[in-house]
């Protein structure tokens, strides 16, 4: 008889144990605090994570669990350790064989880093509103424009970059194309952005493209389809963001439990007990929602409703849990690890689609499905 099984298989449980062990050993509170303060990238941690064999791009479940366990210890450095190939699915799904051969191994082995350059100074949620242009001239395209808040931006060896290849028409999401831009190319300028609220170890940069010549063979997929490729990618990356948020929330709860335990359980009042109960309840719900969305995605059958729900609910859970954790732990949280969790959590509601965008996506997907069903019924009646 077919059945739903909410247990992770043994190999993933073992993988989770290893990931946690690695994170606790390598990302000490002092380590996390140092990179947070200095806003610097923990390159040696990233190398160690790859050397340990934990970062296994070929096994998406393993990557998911890894991100969860790393963020549970520290989101800033944890994300740095595993996000060196951020944006890669745009190439693996839509790139040419030549592109895959050239660019995939160098980032999945950790030798090189990449990033995805979509957001611009004046276009965030509104992806189709980007202004960067790519103009074809013979065997290359010339890129001009600026990209904003690009993760790994300053460190990446190449950036998958969204551009406009034909003028904006009524259909705004038409005419956009993705290119692989090697960052050593003339005309690429990168400025690191400072003073983030949280995830401060992660590298965030502004990229300026000034007459950057990119070979035509670096076009990903078909010209004009960039918007769809990026949206497909977001359906993947949002799952990882969701699990990062779950990790942060779990890490905050871990610390609250330690705190309460050290205080002596006999002093516990109902207000705190109930809050802890609610933290657990929300975190487990967010985790299951994320695993469920991941399960659909990893079987190549993503459900944007589920994905966006996991992303929005996960990040709101992270923010809520860290807020409550601060209230419970007071001065200890304010001056210790927890305040970083509180600062880190907020980005989850913003990057990879704000909570607002996620909720709109959920509703619009529902209506699209309703419409399909409605039209299907009508079609059926005719036939």
């Amino acid at each position, binding site marked *: 008889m077919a059945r739903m099984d909410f247990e992770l298989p043994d190999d993933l449980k073992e993988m989770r144990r290893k990931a946690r062990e690695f994170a606790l050993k390598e990302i000490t509170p002092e380590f996390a605090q140092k990179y947070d303060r200095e806003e610097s990238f923990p390159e040696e941690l990233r190398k160690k994570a790859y050397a340990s064999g934990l970062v296994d791009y070929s096994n998406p479940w393993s990557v998911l669990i890894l991100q969860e366990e790393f963020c549970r210890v520290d989101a800033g450095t944890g994300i740095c350790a595993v996000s060196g190939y951020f944006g890669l699915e745009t190439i693996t799904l839509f790139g040419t064989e030549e592109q895959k051969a050239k660019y995939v191994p160098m980032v999945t082995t950790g030798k090189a880093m990449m990033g995805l350059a979509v957001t611009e100074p004046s276009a965030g949620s509104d992806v189709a509103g980007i202004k960067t242009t790519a103009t074809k001239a013979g065997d290359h395209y010339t890129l001009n424009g600026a990209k904003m808040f690009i993760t790994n931006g300053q460190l990446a060896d190449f950036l998958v970059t969204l551009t406009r290849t034909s003028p904006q028409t009524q259909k705004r999401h038409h005419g956009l194309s993705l290119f692989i831009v090697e960052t050593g190319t003339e005309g690429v300028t990168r400025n690191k952005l400072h003073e*983030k609220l949280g995830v401060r170890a992660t590298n965030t940069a502004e990229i300026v493209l000034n007459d950057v010549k990119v070979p035509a063979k670096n076009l990903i997929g078909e010209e004009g389809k960039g918007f769809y490729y990026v949206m497909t990618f977001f359906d993947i990356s949002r799952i990882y963001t969701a699990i990062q948020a779950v990790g942060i929330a779990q890490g905050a709860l871990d610390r609250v439990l330690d705190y309460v335990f050290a205080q002596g359980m006999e002093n516990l009042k109902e207000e705190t007990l109930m809050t802890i109960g609610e933290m657990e309840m929300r975190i487990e719900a967010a985790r299951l929602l994320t695993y469920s969305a991941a399960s659909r995605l990893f079987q190549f059958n993503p459900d944007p409703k589920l994905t966006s729900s996991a992303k929005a609910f996960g990040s709101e859970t992270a923010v809520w849990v860290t807020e409550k954790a601060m209230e419970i732990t*007071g001065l200890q949280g*304010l*001056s210790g690890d927890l305040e970083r969790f509180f600062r880190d959590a907020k980005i989850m509601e913003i990057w990879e689609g704000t909570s607002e965008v996620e909720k709109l996506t959920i509703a619009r997907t529902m209506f699209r499905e309703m419409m399909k069903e409605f039209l299907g019924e009508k079609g059926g009646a005719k036939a």
Partner: protein
Amino acid sequence: MSSEEHQLLRSSVREFAQKNLEGISAKIERDGLRPETIAAMAAQGFLGAYVPSELGGTGLDERGYMIVLEELARVSPSAAVRVLLTNSLYAPLAMATEKGKKTLEDVASAKVNATVAHTCLLEGYREQTGVILADSRVKGVKEFVLNSDAGLVILTANGTPGTLLLVRGGVEPVNDQTRLGFRGLRFSSVRVDSGDFEVLGENGAGMLEGALDGMDLEVAAIALGITAGAVAKAIDYSKGRTTFEHPLKDYQPVAFSLSSLKSEEEMLRTYVYGEGLSGTAKVMARVKSTQLARSATKQALQVHGGYGYFGDFGVEKFYRDAMALPLLFSRGVKDMQRLSQAVFESRAGFM
């Protein structure tokens, strides 16, 4: 002071904050409040705003003092907290003795920096070593001191409730702490080794508690300032920022949420500055204002999108400070118990 005078005061503090703090508000977060800024604040009479004029202060009434706090917090919550520390914690405690009173003139004029180690009252405080008074000398380490590079420090010695001391000299900030908010002020432990001190009272914790509970409206004023600063930034931003070819403000979720927060801000302001508030009303003002500051700063940051997450836009500091304010100056559970006691007219909410 008349309401015209209050109005005038409000515009002059606002002008001061615009001129002297707005441009450097990000720098204050980075490097702390500089001596020249403190001096400018002292010259305006802010550092001794609520200190009686016969003791060298400005002698504003409570409402006037709250206006100063609110307007400074609107631009730099750190600056407001600096003023709060001297006027609402240091001054009332120092006034316990004649010698203490004599220090106020120098504190108000910023000749000397003063602070109070009050955090021993708060959730999460754990004293590792403590300060001991023996053989006419004060020695030890006090943890979690805000504005810790002060020449005058009021602290408790010899455990709890302890003796409240005003220590002059021989105080050194050590072990800077990570901190979420009020980054304009140093936050560290202080090492004390001094023979120059004054006993302010024997029930140290009780005296600190009195001062902390006595500043309900002041905390509410700072929370209102944080709210106002953050909401104003979000409103400005959503007028200018375009997404999907419309200004943000055209979208219901943005317009409605900010308008609703603005309403709460205005209503609370009317309440907080109301005539003759009872003790209970003051606790209510503190509790609701600090809650509003947290929800308002969160939404203000969210409206700014990615930009909100960066120091440059000056909104993330409000988010941090809105959380730090109640953690450092309110006593979450104790405040709610005070409130419940008043509401139920008997001991309530202790299980």
